[in-house]
């Protein structure tokens, strides 16, 4: 399989009408996946901000390859907090023809009450935590967009919905979140509701993303699985266990796999490679680094490469220079804090393209700090 670090000219070349493409951008504050299914039709999963501008990274990329945002037919929303989906509201507003795919939990009255109570914290720089989901909800409230609910084994789009000139049937499925995860999320939101007389706070997401949407896509015989942030708790009703146990899910195995939850072991289930993935799949990881916490770890890398030797990362985890501060400030930070780290978003991009109708392999291109997974620490 040819691999290259692409020149600008290659980067700006849009996919052909009979070519499918998957582009994964991250990590920033959040990560994003764009997929071209043919005929200039795109769907997007989540959002993050571009480094070069303040715009959502998916819009920047579509602009770079001269693709029209009006051709985005769906946007999948699996995060609600500002730290994980920067630019989501802007993305949804710009892609005027996109259906919004999200868990119904986002529109539940208790969660919406939670959003509203946290909407105006009156802080100077700290974000409310709910700005993006608030903007998205406003679009839906004003009737500017329609919404499709994501839940297990739902065929969101079928061949009759997406008629393609290349003749390959296209299907888009959601495989999560499960009912238990839906309820867990709403219980959490209710517990976080403010009370009368309490000083205002900002909204902070909880560590576990209960509403992570796993997306399964088939274009003809090509199958792709986007694992989102789905974590595995070892319980039948949640995570990958719930997906593996479910009846009614599509059975064809994926050749391309977006590794969940930054490649961490919490996103791993031993049966996923054998039950859901084809032999020798292509795997992509969007890593995470915050101070001493880096994901994936070397153990994670070894585990992923064991079932997917052809694996890539959107960014390296090599050390990055800290910003320079006054020596007195640096000294004080060391004295006062137990830990201090700067979250430097440094997204790269992995792009896969494949010509339909030919016995062709996926072409992999890497941009920015993206590379092969075995060199993620270099």
């Amino acid at each position, binding site marked *: 399989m040819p691999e290259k670090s692409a020149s600008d000219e290659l980067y700006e070349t849009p996919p052909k009408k009979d070519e499918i493409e998957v582009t994964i951008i991250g990590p920033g504050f959040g990560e994003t996946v764009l997929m071209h299914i043919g005929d200039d039709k795109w769907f997007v999963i989540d959002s993050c901000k571009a480094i070069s501008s303040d715009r959502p990274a998916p819009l920047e990329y579509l602009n770079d390859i001269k693709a029209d945002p009006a051709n985005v037919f769906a946007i999948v929303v699996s995060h609600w907090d500002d730290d994980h989906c920067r630019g989501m509201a802007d993305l949804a507003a710009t892609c005027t023809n996109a259906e919004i795919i999200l868990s119904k939990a986002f*529109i539940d009255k208790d969660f919406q009450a939670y959003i509203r109570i946290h909407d105006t914290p009156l802080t100077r720089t700290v974000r409310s935590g709910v700005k993006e989901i608030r903007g998205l*909800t406003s679009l839906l409230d004003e009737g500017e967009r329609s919404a499709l609910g994501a839940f297990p084994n739902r065929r969101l789009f079928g061949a009759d919905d997406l008629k393609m000139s290349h003749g390959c049937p296209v299907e888009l499925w959601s495989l999560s979140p499960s009912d238990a995860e839906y309820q867990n999320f709403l219980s959490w939101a209710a517990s976080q509701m403010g009370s009368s007389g309490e*000083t205002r706070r900002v909204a902070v997401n909880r560590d576990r993303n209960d509403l992570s949407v796993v997306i399964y896509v088939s274009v003809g015989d090509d199958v792709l699985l986007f694992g989102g942030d789905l974590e595995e708790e070892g319980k039948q009703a949640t995570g990958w266990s719930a997906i593996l146990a479910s009846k009614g899910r599509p059975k064809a195995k994926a050749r391309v796999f977006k590794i969940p939850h930054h490649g961490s072991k919490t996103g791993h289930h031993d049966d996923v490679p054998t039950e859901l993935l084809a032999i020798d799949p292509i795997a992509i990881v969007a890593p995470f680094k915050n101070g001493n916490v880096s994901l994936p770890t070397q153990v994670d890398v070894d585990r992923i490469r064991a079932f997917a030797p052809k694996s890539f990362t959107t960014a390296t985890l090599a050390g990055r220079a800290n910003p320079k501060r*006054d020596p007195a*400030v640096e000294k*004080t930070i060391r004295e*006062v804090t137990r830990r201090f780290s700067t979250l430097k978003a440094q997204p790269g991009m992995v792009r896969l393209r494949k010509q339909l109708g030919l016995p062709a392999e996926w072409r992999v291109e890497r941009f920015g700090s993206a590379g092969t997974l075995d060199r993620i620490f270099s």
Partner: protein
Amino acid sequence: MPLDMPSQMTSWSQRQPSGSPHTTSWSEPQPPTSPLVMPKVNKPEVRRDAAYALRTDIDNPNKDIDISDGIRILEDFAPLERARLYQHTQPSRLEVLNAWEGAVMAVNRKAGTFTARLYDLTDTKADISEAEFEIGDVSLNDVELLKVGGVFRWMIGYRTHSFGQRERISAIKFRRLPAWTAEDIQAAAAEGDRIARKIRVR
């Protein structure tokens, strides 16, 4: 960034009366508030945990003030000089080297720490930071505000007294943002209800 510091905020000149309203260290306009009747809140008992115990080992006659008002003095004066300043009532000047607005992400009472996301107030283009602080560095008056989502200011700077002595300080002050009222809660619930009924998710 020199700021005039009112004399009552100089640790040495006046001890904070217990239960008094807590003012912010820096001159800044307070956010507009509607007339509020602050409900009486039973202040939680502050646990003197291991982190606090370590702090009382600092050789400082006013150690209770240092720890209880959210200000940590990092470069102490000799006791004699401190005694002279204690009687002095001229305002000191505060030079802020760096300041952040922070949001509490997690509180670990067992370990005596809290984690916060920090947004640089002195450089709005700076990247976001995360830090883990000692709960003992939070003013006793602010401990009730130490919750997930709580907002605070963290300042590192120099305080210069009128005699010219300078001390390096770190100060954490929680923001007493306007409280949610019963009307706010009801309005949020009503809006949540309206949205849930109006938006159709197919």
